[in-house]
């Protein structure tokens, strides 16, 4: 938490952003091999030490196996990274192609045709992009607010029906959103929420709540109450306690939950479609019909724009987390 740590983290984040911008599929693969060499070096050095008998073996006694496991892990990671990034790069290439006739392995001509076509055909897509981000941010704020308070109730208080509430919080995880969306549509019509942006936001919040709540319950449990009690003993008012103790302690979890909720919201198609009707058009609802269509360049442009927006917000969250000195983001089920 000291300033030196802060500076280093900031540097690392900057390096990460630069590498994201540069990273194409091959670039990532190269990074990977570079990392292998870099980490391979100390391992060899350690082996020499072992021969001299200066240090005990760190893991197990059969070092031959040890190296094989390591090699297998490296190979698996490389294959995995290729599988993850190759298709995404391919989509990027598709979005930039003009003509890519059938048997050619490489596209014939690159152009910005699809981009101009999508972005200049009315302000439709840009406004959809804006609406998507707005909904995403609203959803993450609301969900995190509800989840943080609910987590406090579930962890720090003993009350009647606590287990029922706990059960209800997990429920949207395990009962599909299609069921929820079809069932709630009638009620939303009656409340006047159907076909409105606020209706979509509420529905997205419901879908994102269990993710946020699971993270927040974990974080609240880990934080405990002793810091808050100290603050109160020292005479802090409840507002000061929340401002100077509770919030900083919970912040990493809050940001993780917020970014997860954002991702869930902007990637949602079915709930947006059903609650938003035709009125609320997000990137997802515009993109969907094009995904399985023949013009892959147009679909590619939609996907590239979508991923760019997602990545931007994701990196912003990462940057804030890094600045706070948080090394690890909270994962979902404990840890």
């Amino acid at each position: 938490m000291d300033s030196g740590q802060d500076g280093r983290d900031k540097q690392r984040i900057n390096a990460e952003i630069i590498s994201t911008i540069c990273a194409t599929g091959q670039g990532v693969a190269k990074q990977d091999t570079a990392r292998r060499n870099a980490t391979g070096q100390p391992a060899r050095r350690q082996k020499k030490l072992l021969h001299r008998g200066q240090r005990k073996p760190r893991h197990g006694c059969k070092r031959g196996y040890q190296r094989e496991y390591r090699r297998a892990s490296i190979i698996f990671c490389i294959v995995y990274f290729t599988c993850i990034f190759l298709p995404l790069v391919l989509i990027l290439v598709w979005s930039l192609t003009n003509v890519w006739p059938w048997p050619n392995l490489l596209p014939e001509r690159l152009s910005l045709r699809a981009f101009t076509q999508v972005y200049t055909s009315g302000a439709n897509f840009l406004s959809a992009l804006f609406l998507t981000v707005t909904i995403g941010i609203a959803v993450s704020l609301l969900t995190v607010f509800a989840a943080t308070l609910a987590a406090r109730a579930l962890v720090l208080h003993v009350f009647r029906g606590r287990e029922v509430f706990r059960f209800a919080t997990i429920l949207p995880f395990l009962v599909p959103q299609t069921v929820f969306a079809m069932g709630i549509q009638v009620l939303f019509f009656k409340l006047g929420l159907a076909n409105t942006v606020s209706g979509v936001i509420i529905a997205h919040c419901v879908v994102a709540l269990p993710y946020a709540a699971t993270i927040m319950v974990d974080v609240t449990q880990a934080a405990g109450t002793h810091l808050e009690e100290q603050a109160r003993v020292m005479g802090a008012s409840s507002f000061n306690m929340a401002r100077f103790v509770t919030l900083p302690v919970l912040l990493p979890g809050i940001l993780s939950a917020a970014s997860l909720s954002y991702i869930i919201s902007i990637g949602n198609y079915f709930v947006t479609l059903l609650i938003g009707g035709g009125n609320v058009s997000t990137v997802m609802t515009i993109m969907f019909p094009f995904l399985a269509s023949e013009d892959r360049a147009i679909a590619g442009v939609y996907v590239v724009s979508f991923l760019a927006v997602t990545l931007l917000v994701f990196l912003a969250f990462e940057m804030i987390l890094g600045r706070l000195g948080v090394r690890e983001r909270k994962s979902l089920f404990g840890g």
Partner: protein
Amino acid sequence: MRAREARFDVRSSDALPDMRSGTRPSIRPKSTRLKSVLPPGLRLSRKTRRKLVPYLLFFPAAILLFFFVFGMINGVLQGFGIAPFLGKYDLTLDYYIQALTKSELSISILFSLYLAVLATLGAAILGIVLSAAICKLGAGRKIRLFGVQMPMMVAHSVVVLCLLTIFSSSGLLARFLFELGLITEPSDMPSVLGAPSGWGIILTYIWREVPFIAFCTITIMAHIGDRYGEAAAVLGANSIKTFFTVTLPLCKSAIIKASLVVFAYVFGSYEVAALLGPTLPKALPVLAYYQFKLVDITNRCLAMALNGITIAICMVVVIIYFITLWHERREGQWTQARTGETNKE
């Protein structure tokens, strides 16, 4: 800490946490404010106020959950033929019987189950291997960021496009095979679109859920590796043995919970199955939505009966989830690990 910088006004014993009642000492609520707002006649006793706090805290989440539970119950009721907006008020099992006896529908249920089971198994196994591999390499934050968290942002329907660019009849793979002289026409390539075996759907979900499973297990696995892995190594276990006897049992509940979430998601989600699925058999959610949006609004009851079946199957998942949760708490392995964790910090 920054708390020290703040200047607090010490307010006698009023600021101290109340230790008298309750099993665990909790922070005193903002009771003073509540009291001043209410008129004298409506003032609640301190005990009532204390009891009210958790419910107030839970209130925003409760509103959201109310919508969810209402949607679920409403759906189930409509499946039983109670749909006031259609003018139907009689309880009937017709729609469920119709859903379960029609051969097309029962095949849909089996198809969805098949997709969900295979996708979950594949994702769970590969996800565990991935997080073990990343832990083994001691990979840094950047690898985790781009290998695990970034793929999670890619929406499912985007993955469908990824798959199509590679596996469709004019995709990259077909072009490679043409180059090698194995096929001559795009139509020679078995397309991923609408394949009756649904391998495209399964592959899509595996692509997307492997990072999810890894995301859920990687932190735990890293901690276990740090703490118990070395102990096991000192006692003479090799790493495979350590993995199966120490790491995996300790990660078990996280893995099970993540897999159940994946299962329920795959079983009940619409997008991927709608884009890549065959016309027959349709996945259960696709079929339900198909019935739902038919012009004849009376078909909604049948759609809801299908949803009811989805809920019934998901309830099994819920029960397994809660058994896992219960076991986890009873064994207390995690609380132990966690308290160790907080002490270290």
